[in-house]
């Protein structure tokens, strides 16, 4: 038979981890395959069954659930299902179901086991996937995924958990938490855990909804928290947190409370390189050293993506590196130029301010000087300072801002009163040009110097913007200029320009529309949050956005952001410059499906915003 000419054989030869197997063996695999087809929603492996085959998804999508009914893993085109049970001797422990109509290739279990025992790369591939969903790590960043797989939750705990009774008052619990510097506590009724309270609850419940502090803590707790066993591996805890979007996980063994595992505990462990990286940045003596350290950012990003952290957390981590480099450059410049002659604040704008930096970022920055600034005596110092920092950032990979929004531009290096004037003008006469700046200068954070210089402006700006319906209408109109594509299969709206024509710009068509929407919601409610997801959450808490609208947009933003990060990590792994352009054919059918939902959510909110802020009346 001419099996070697079949397309099926080509597909097998392309599927990891079989790519490097000898040709004769690939022929043998192809010749011994069976093919089956399941309609969507078909459960084809159930706990307790005996499975003799390993499935390779040719087309379609598969969902795998654990015994508690939580989603354990997804598989799509070119990915494997059923290897766990075959390697275990056949007994199925997870429920495997088709999410879409699926065509599956079956490799006989005996042949599969032979591949695993004869080829270490095959063994390694399936071994890494056996315990969790983390992607196989590339050379050089291998330690990350491994660390998460081998470390047990108990090793990450430090100290026990604060435990309070459900009848304790909110005020008393708050006092205990702040005394112990605890970010969360467990609420019990007798011996039984009935809820968890995080420090966020004091903002979202007590402050935002005006719940009195004399009431019982049970009023503001999240009931029935999910718990984890101390013997579970850290990767499992991370996957659980990511899936449920929680940052605190009570660790219990039987009825004994061992502690509360936080996202920070995990971050500290699996991101020890990042903590280390930030430390070294703060100790760097020369720009050259900084450039070398900044060079580690791409591989760090790959590791973060592989550790299945959320886009939200990755954004914070990557931004913390950007922030550290900027602060270090400022300190080095001050060391050489001498102490600043007058107070000033170094302000960052855009993605760094929002804690949303990804694979590649330009620099956006500005200086707010105190009002006793005199050009003749102080001008030289700040010009020099701005120049050094801006050049240093560029050398570290944060390229010069194409729109010249940098402290080196005299326009963006002004005393506080001039800045106040800028903002007043942007709010009161929202010309198109002004609106362009709003999207930059309404996402700002002071990271060095006299931070209060910015805080005072912000307070005034938030108060002015909130009640100004004309400004908000313009801002909303501005937020509607980029729409997500209408559809994914045939209606991909392609971006103009060179080689990137056949790809979807995830940033412009997916990320930016949500950032813009969140900014409008935040300013309309006078909220100081800068991060997009924080803005959405705060807007919902203050009643400026519905709970559904909030969670839909957050999900969309998180999903699109995660997809973009995965794409950039993939490019870095291939030695390319990360960008935002994803070729549709590189998306699995599952990703396409979720992306379609995400775009749909963004479009729905854009429409709602258009009518709510009466954008149509502007023209």
């Amino acid at each position, binding site marked *: 038979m001419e099996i070697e000419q079949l397309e099926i054989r080509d597909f097998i030869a392309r599927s990891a981890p079989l790519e490097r197997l000898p040709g004769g063996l690939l022929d043998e695999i192809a010749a011994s395959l069976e093919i089956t*087809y399941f309609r969507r929603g078909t459960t084809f492996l159930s706990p307790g069954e005996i499975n003799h085959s390993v499935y390779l998804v040719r*087309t379609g999508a598969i969902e795998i659930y654990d015994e508690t009914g939580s989603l354990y893993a997804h598989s799509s085109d070119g990915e494997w299902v059923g290897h766990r049970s075959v390697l275990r001797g056949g007994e199925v422990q997870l429920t495997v179901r088709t999410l879409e109509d699926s*065509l599956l290739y079956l490799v006989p279990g005996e042949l599969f086991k032979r591949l695993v025992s004869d080829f270490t790369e095959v063994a390694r591939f399936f071994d890494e996937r056996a315990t969790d969903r983390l992607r196989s790590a590339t050379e050089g960043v291998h330690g990350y995924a491994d660390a998460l797989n081998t470390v047990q939750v108990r090793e990450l705990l430090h100290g026990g958990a604060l435990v309070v009774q459900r009848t304790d008052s909110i005020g008393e619990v708050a006092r205990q938490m702040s005394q112990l510097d605890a970010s969360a506590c467990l609420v019990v009724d007798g011996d039984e855990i009935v809820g968890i309270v995080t420090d966020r609850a004091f903002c979202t419940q007590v402050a935002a909804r005006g719940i009195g502090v004399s009431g019982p803590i049970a009023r503001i707790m999240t009931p029935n928290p999910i718990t984890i066993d101390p013997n579970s591996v850290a990767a499992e805890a991370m996957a659980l947190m990511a899936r449920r979007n929680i940052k605190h996980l009570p660790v219990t063994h039987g009825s004994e409370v061992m502690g509360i595992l936080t996202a920070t505990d995990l971050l500290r462990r699996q991101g020890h390189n990042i903590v280390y990286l930030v430390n070294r940045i703060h100790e760097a003596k020369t720009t050259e050293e900084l450039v070398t350290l900044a060079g580690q950012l791409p591989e760090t990003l790959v590791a973060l993506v592989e550790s299945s952290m959320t886009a939200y957390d990755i954004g914070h981590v990557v931004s913390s590196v950007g922030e550290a480099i900027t602060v270090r450059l400022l300190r080095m410049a001050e060391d050489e130029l001498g102490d600043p002659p007058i107070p000033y604040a170094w302000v960052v704008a855009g993605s760094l301010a929002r804690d949303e930096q990804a694979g590649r970022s330009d620099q956006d920055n500005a200086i707010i000087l105190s009002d006793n600034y005199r050009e003749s005596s102080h001008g030289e110092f700040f010009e020099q300072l701005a120049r050094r920092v801006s050049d240093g950032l560029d050398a570290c990979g944060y390229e010069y801002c194409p729109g010249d929004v940098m402290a080196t531009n005299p326009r963006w290096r002004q005393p506080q009163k001039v800045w106040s004037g800028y903002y007043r003008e942007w709010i009161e006469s929202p010309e198109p040009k002004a609106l362009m700046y709003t999207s930059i200068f309404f996402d700002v954070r002071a990271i060095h110097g006299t931070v209060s210089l910015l805080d005072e402006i912000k307070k005034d700006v938030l108060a002015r913007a909130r009640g100004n319906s004309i400004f908000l209408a313009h801002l909303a109109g501005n937020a509607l200029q980029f729409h997500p594509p209408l559809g994914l299969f045939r209606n991909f709206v392609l971006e103009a320009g060179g080689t990137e024509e056949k790809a979807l710009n995830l940033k412009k068509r997916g990320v930016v529309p949500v950032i813009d929407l969140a900014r409008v919601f935040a300013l309309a409610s006078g909220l100081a949050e800068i991060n997009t997801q924080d803005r959405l959450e705060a807007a919902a808490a203050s009643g400026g956005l519905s709970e559904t609208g909030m969670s839909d947009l957050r999900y969309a933003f998180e999903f699109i952001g995660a997809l973009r990060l995965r794409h950039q990590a993939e490019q870095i792994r291939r030695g390319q410059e990360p960008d935002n352009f994803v070729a549709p054919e590189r998306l699995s059918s599952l990703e396409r499906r979720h992306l379609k939902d995400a775009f749909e959510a963004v479009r729905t909110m854009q429409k709602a915003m258009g009518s709510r802020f009466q954008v149509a009346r502007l023209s």
Partner: protein
Amino acid sequence: MNLADLLFRSPERRRRRLASSHPTGPLGAYLSRPLPSDKVTIQDLEILSLDLETTGLDVCKDSILSVGYTLVRGGRVVLSESGHHIVRTDAPLPRESVVIHKISDDQVREGQELVDVLGELVPKLAGRALLAHFSRIERRFLEAATQEIWGVKLPLVVIDTLEIERRKLGRVQSEVAPHYLRLFNCRDRYGLPRYRAHNALEDAIATAELFLAQMAHRGRSLDRIRLRDM
């Protein structure tokens, strides 16, 4: 003997009649096993998906160029039971055969004799249903070939994925555009991948997959669909 056999010249009745007069050889092997009963379920039925590439559509003038087949058993395509043969012929190949089927004159000169190919294929059909997309071609060329070689038209039980699709679509629209029923357009509707067309084995596998998809979309398990429901 049941009533149906008496009233209709059923293939099974013909098989039994022929079996006594052709006890040996590949034909004997085929005829010695009962054709599948129409009560058998798709789960239990063995099906040979067959595709023939020919020099044209006219049974009298055209000849078989290649034969590809694979087995469908228990809801799975079993590739270890598949085969592909190029048939030797002296007739010059029409240009389109070369272009579409990618079979060259040289390959055909070195191919197997039709009698040897049938000698392998026909016993593999024994006790099984034949599956093809637009089965008229496979059925007619196969009947003509066995007629020529053994003097017997093979009694066959045939399942046709095109017919299944036509009937399914016919329920919602009175007229179905012909291109809608082509193998690759049918496969598209079930989310099956696009194979490069026109190697006989590849087409036989493609047809077998389409059949599995059609059965899956009936929404009943295979042990509750019977051959007569085709």
